[in-house]
């Protein structure tokens, strides 16, 4: 019997995964797939979709199962060996709390969003990629919860993440980002999340957090991060493929995609300010500065990508020059903001030590020494004389990104940037030209935003009348979950455990 020629990867994949769908005859295709045309994206031929990672379901399960086995073995070892004692300092956990509260719910939201997209596209290849991603994102939510749960036994501020998701003012920032994407159509959703967030900007999220974990002795988070990142590489390729597919299918798609890239580059950049601030201020052992990270992961890698897309008629996103102007000051401005609103945060803030200030002088140079070091020194002196600075008044937040409006004008670091935008006879406020442009493009959408300060003033935060009642409504305990790090139970416990960890057992004399 003659042996057949062994099939190559591409042929095997095509035979195993193509031709399994069909044109419906009981109902028109447009009734079966009602969501994938209203955005105006025109697809001439779904067979033009190319899967860059040719994973069949059996390969998917096999590799994912192997990654899970390795990850949970490491988490077991971490827990059994009191891995929480090996972190650089308990201040580091503000980064983990930020992630648990701000990112983990987004993983769950992504799971839901990709489940919807995985039903919405009429192309089978796109549906499968979205369905795999939906499972990946649920995996990320679960593995993050498992990785971080150990810290909840020893440190404060972790317990309330689920309760806080719909109630905490600062968590409306990531939440509104994702809900903006989820309330869009499937093509915008995948462009915003898979491409803009998980391709263009992902390295600015994962690399800082996961490298930060590695540098600061957090084996649980490091291991979760690297395990999840390999899923992310699939997500990245989905994002790039969807954008190239749309651009190749019809020239009418180009301006639509360009508008989405403009919007989601800006929204992603605004969200990532929290990550930059984490890098510069919450990591006792620093990986690199936000300014350096932006230089590598956007100014080198990101711009290389847009050079590649130029052949389709895509240009760099609008306002891409603004992050370059802000990169030397963004994190200092943001940390000073978080610091003052600390009575309503489920993580601690503090003034950095002198060696950290010197690191920032080295990384940021003259502008740090001129503008921000003096502020930090002044706040330290206040704290030392018992007048630690807090601002207990609600801030104005941006109608689009929902971040408190601390941003200064791109060309003037001493003037807060406020843009007034009108819709339906009402005035609203945005933090920047980037957000104002987004508002003006879809005002009917953004006037519906629920901004936490407004909700609180309307009595929708359990009727809370001040920051103390509000924090209680968030299930936060004053100065235990919230407030200043120095003197907190987390800090006192840490000092005690480190002392016990170092003390030798009593020997015979």
């Amino acid at each position: 019997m003659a042996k057949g020629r062994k099939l190559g990867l591409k042929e095997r994949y095509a035979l195993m995964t193509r031709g399994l769908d069909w044109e419906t005859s009981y109902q028109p295709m447009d009734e079966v797939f009602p969501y994938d045309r209203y955005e105006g994206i025109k697809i001439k031929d779904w067979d033009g979709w190319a899967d860059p990672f040719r994973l069949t379901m059996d390969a998917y399960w096999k590799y994912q199962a192997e990654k899970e086995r390795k990850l949970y073995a490491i988490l077991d070892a971490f827990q059994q060996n009191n891995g929480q004692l090996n972190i650089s300092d308990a201040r580091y956990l503000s980064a983990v709390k930020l992630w648990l509260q701000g990112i983990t719910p987004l993983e769950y939201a992504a799971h839901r969003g990709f489940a919807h997209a995985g039903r919405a596209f009429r192309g089978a290849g796109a549906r499968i990629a979205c369905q795999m991603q939906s499972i990946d994102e649920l995996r990320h939510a679960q593995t993050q919860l498992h990785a971080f749960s150990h810290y909840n036994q020893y440190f404060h501020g972790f317990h309330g993440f689920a309760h806080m998701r719909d109630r905490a003012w600062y968590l409306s920032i990531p939440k509104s980002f994702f809900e903006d994407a989820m309330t869009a159509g499937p093509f915008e959703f995948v462009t915003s999340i898979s491409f803009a967030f998980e391709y263009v900007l992902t390295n600015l999220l994962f690399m800082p957090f996961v490298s930060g974990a590695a540098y600061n002795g957090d084996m649980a988070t490091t291991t979760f991060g690297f395990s999840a990142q390999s899923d992310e590489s699939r997500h990245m390729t989905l994002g790039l493929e969807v954008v190239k597919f749309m651009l190749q299918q019809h020239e009418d798609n180009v301006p639509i995609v360009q508008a989405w890239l403009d919007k989601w580059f800006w929204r992603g950049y605004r969200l990532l300010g929290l990550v930059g601030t984490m890098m510069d201020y919450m990591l006792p052992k620093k990986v690199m500065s936000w300014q350096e990270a932006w230089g590598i992961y956007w100014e080198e890698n990101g711009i290389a990508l847009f050079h590649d897309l130029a052949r389709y008629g895509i240009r760099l996103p609008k306002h891409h020059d603004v992050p370059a102007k802000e990169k030397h000051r963004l994190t200092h401005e943001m940390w000073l903001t978080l610091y003052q609103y600390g009575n309503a945060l489920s993580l601690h803030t503090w003034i950095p030590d002198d060696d950290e200030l010197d690191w920032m002088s080295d990384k940021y140079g003259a502008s740090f020494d001129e503008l921000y070091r003096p502020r930090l020194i002044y706040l330290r002196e206040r704290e030392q004389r018992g007048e630690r600075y807090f601002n207990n008044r609600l801030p104005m937040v941006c109608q689009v990104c929902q971040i408190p409006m601390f941003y200064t004008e791109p060309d003037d670091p001493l003037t807060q940037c406020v843009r007034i935008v009108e819709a339906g006879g009402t005035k609203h406020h945005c933090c920047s030209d980037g957000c104002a442009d987004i508002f003006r493009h879809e005002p009917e959408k953004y006037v519906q935003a629920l901004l936490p300060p407004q909700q609180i003033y309307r009595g929708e935060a359990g009727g809370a009348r001040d920051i103390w009642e509000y924090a209680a409504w968030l299930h936060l305990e004053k100065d235990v979950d919230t407030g200043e790090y120095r003197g907190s139970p987390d800090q006192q416990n840490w000092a005690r455990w480190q002392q016990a960890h170092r003390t030798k057992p009593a020997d015979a004399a």
Partner: protein
Amino acid sequence: MSVKYLGEAYEYPSANRLEQYGGDINVYVRWERHLMFACPAAYRVPVAMSFGDFVEQLLRPDYAAHPDTAKLEFARCVWQLDKAPWQPVFSKSIADNGIGHMSYLSFSSPGLDGLHGKGY
């Protein structure tokens, strides 16, 4: 409109309407060159409150932490309403001063330029 949508119409009211406030309004206030107060602050204010009471009973206590506040005289400040030059009348009400829902007030304090005179 630019929003793409499925269905007959896409018309939704603002989530922050005047009628939800029972006679009060949202007002936002920024003290220029005092970045210790990182953001413009948000207030819920009765429209019948006098502007003088507003600045003394609501703003001044919020500024207590700043060394400049002891010397702060609101009547000597230079004011803007929605980024246009504006002169408040302290004896008149919020409403009679032309301040409405979602108004944005900012003021500079000549001679008081923030911590170390550097805008903080």
